[in-house]
């Protein structure tokens, strides 16, 4: 059987690849898992076995053990909002199969390769953009996601801070979480508006929350005075940016691209190629000027 992929192994037998998802809660992770499965269609002999840990590391660990007992040839881990899973990585290592981590780099164990974004850099990009947009003054609110995915959220917010601290821009951080969701973002924004009538910009740790924040700003009739910017590149946010609303920018964190790159990296490893240990995928800042390049009405995420 021939394959259209780049570096397919030459054997005709079916290659089983485990796709261990910590969670399939949200569009981002769903998109990444789907991208892996979709990309696998380019190889005629690759079977993807996806699991869903339901947000529980222990479940992820046992899912991975399950995959090992099913004798998969390699495992891709989408670690979602956890920091580490040393035992799972140890198990994989003991089983002697390659592991590629996508998006999240789990600590505390060896892995074959990692592909993902640099969240700190993304935060910096958005920070730079907002500094220019606000001409260096004004009051900016930050809506944080929540403890469940704190490390990437913190990276993004710290990146933002690194560019705005010390400028004329004051930053107020919403005291509670926006829970990474649109309704959470909306509630957060409503509370922020009640306490800070003089805001000029909002930064959210992901697009979902800023979509909610944008709608709260619209309800308050302040769309013309407050701009919003976030991270992810979710379809609905791109649409807003393209339409020239007060949603001015988002740092692209492309689940689809990461997922596809992850699968191809795994195929490369299985083909015996030598691959880089860590790969940071570029995360371009999307604004009105370039949004049209990224917007795809049919994408999952």
């Amino acid at each position: 059987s021939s394959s259209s992929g780049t570096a397919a192994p030459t054997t005709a037998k079916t290659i089983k690849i485990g796709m261990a998802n910590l969670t399939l809660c949200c569009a981002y992770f769903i998109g990444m898992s789907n991208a892996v499965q979709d990309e696998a269609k380019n190889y005629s002999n690759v079977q993807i076995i996806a699991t869903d840990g339901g947000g529980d590391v222990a479940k992820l660990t046992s899912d991975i053990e399950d995959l090992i007992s099913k004798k998969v040839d390699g495992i891709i881990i989408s670690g979602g909002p956890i920091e580490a899973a040393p035992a799972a990585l140890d198990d994989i290592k003991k089983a002697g199969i390659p592991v590629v981590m996508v998006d999240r780099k789990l600590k505390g164990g060896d892995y074959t390769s990692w592909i993902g974004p640099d969240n700190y850099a993304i935060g910096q990009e958005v920070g730079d953009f907002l500094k220019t947009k606000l001409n260096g003054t004004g009051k900016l609110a930050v809506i944080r996601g929540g403890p469940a995915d704190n490390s990437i959220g913190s990276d993004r917010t710290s990146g933002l801070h690194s560019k705005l601290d010390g400028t004329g821009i004051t930053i107020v951080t919403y005291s509670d979480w926006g829970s990474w969701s649109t309704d959470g973002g909306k509630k957060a924004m409503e509370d922020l508006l009640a306490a800070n009538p003089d805001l000029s910009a909002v930064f959210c740790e992901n697009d979902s929350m800023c979509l909610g924040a944008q709608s709260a700003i619209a309800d308050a009739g302040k769309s013309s005075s407050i701009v919003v910017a976030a991270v992810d590149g979710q379809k609905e946010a791109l649409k807003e940016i393209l339409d020239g609303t007060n949603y001015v920018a988002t740092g692209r964190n492309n689940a689809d691209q990461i997922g596809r790159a992850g699968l191809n990296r795994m195929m490369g490893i299985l083909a015996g190629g030598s691959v880089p240990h860590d790969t940071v995928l570029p995360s371009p800042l999307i604004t009105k000027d370039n949004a049209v390049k990224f917007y795809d009405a049919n994408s999952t995420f």
Partner: protein
Amino acid sequence: MSSHPALTERALSVLARQVGTARSEWRRRWLSYVPTVAFVVLATFAAVTSDAFLSQGNLSNLFKQIFTNGLISLGMLVVILSAGIDLSVGATVALAGIVAAGLLNMLPWPIAIPLAVAVATVAGGLNGTLVAWFRLPPFVATLATMSAIRGFVYVVSETPITPNESAFRQLVASNVGPVPTVAIFMVGCFLLVSFFLRQTTMGRAIYAIGGNEEAVRLAGINVRAHVMLAYLISGMFAGLAGVILASRVGIAQPSVGAGFELDAIAACVIGGASLAGGRGSVRGTFAGVLLLGLISNLLNLYSVQAYYQQIFKGALIVLAVLARRREG
């Protein structure tokens, strides 16, 4: 007749006892007010020290933010009164939202919204069937449907759906004078359910079933039909909450609603409902919803840091329930 001890001795001991009881009575009463007072002080403190608290924006926010839990709690109350529980409400919220958003892209809202609510009501009917006909424990039945409905929602659409419709969204976002329309709608629903529970034979039967199902059966009342009705009502209110929530944020997310069930149950129980059934009131539930909303509102106004918010939230719930209970 029996002989009495010396009068003085008797009078003295009676007096001593009376003083004793009066003192302990007084202490009990005084203690009973501590939490209430603490809570009132807290709210007053908020009103005085934070300009924002009484601002119209903040109060209207408070109402906009509690209506989801308000509607869900209302349905939950009916189920709890029947000695049941409905863990599937969160998933049903997502279901109704996704269905509504999908339909809104095809149909006018006065058709699409009722249809979506109807779908949620059918989900409630599934719970009702499992509990009333198959006699599954409500906790298990609705835990199972919570999982199944959530899975189904993702099968229908794994991505958020944005409805291309603005009339309903404007309605949801609108105000009547200074009051958000959703707040008026919610209060209307509370009055309606209160009337239903107090003045209709069906409402009384649901209460009675929660109190003693066997007695109700022996009174010739169709227990199954009424239990079914309770779950239908719960599904319907979760559906209403779902469509309004989706319209409010302008997007329907399949992941929305996780944990909503616990908040709703909490509101009912804080409001005096018993999970054993037969006890609880619409008024109490309203107080419970308001209280939970108020706690989170206050903590945010004071910019209490998120982790400490959780600690305070726990403490305030305990305090508030103590206050309510001692009052009653």
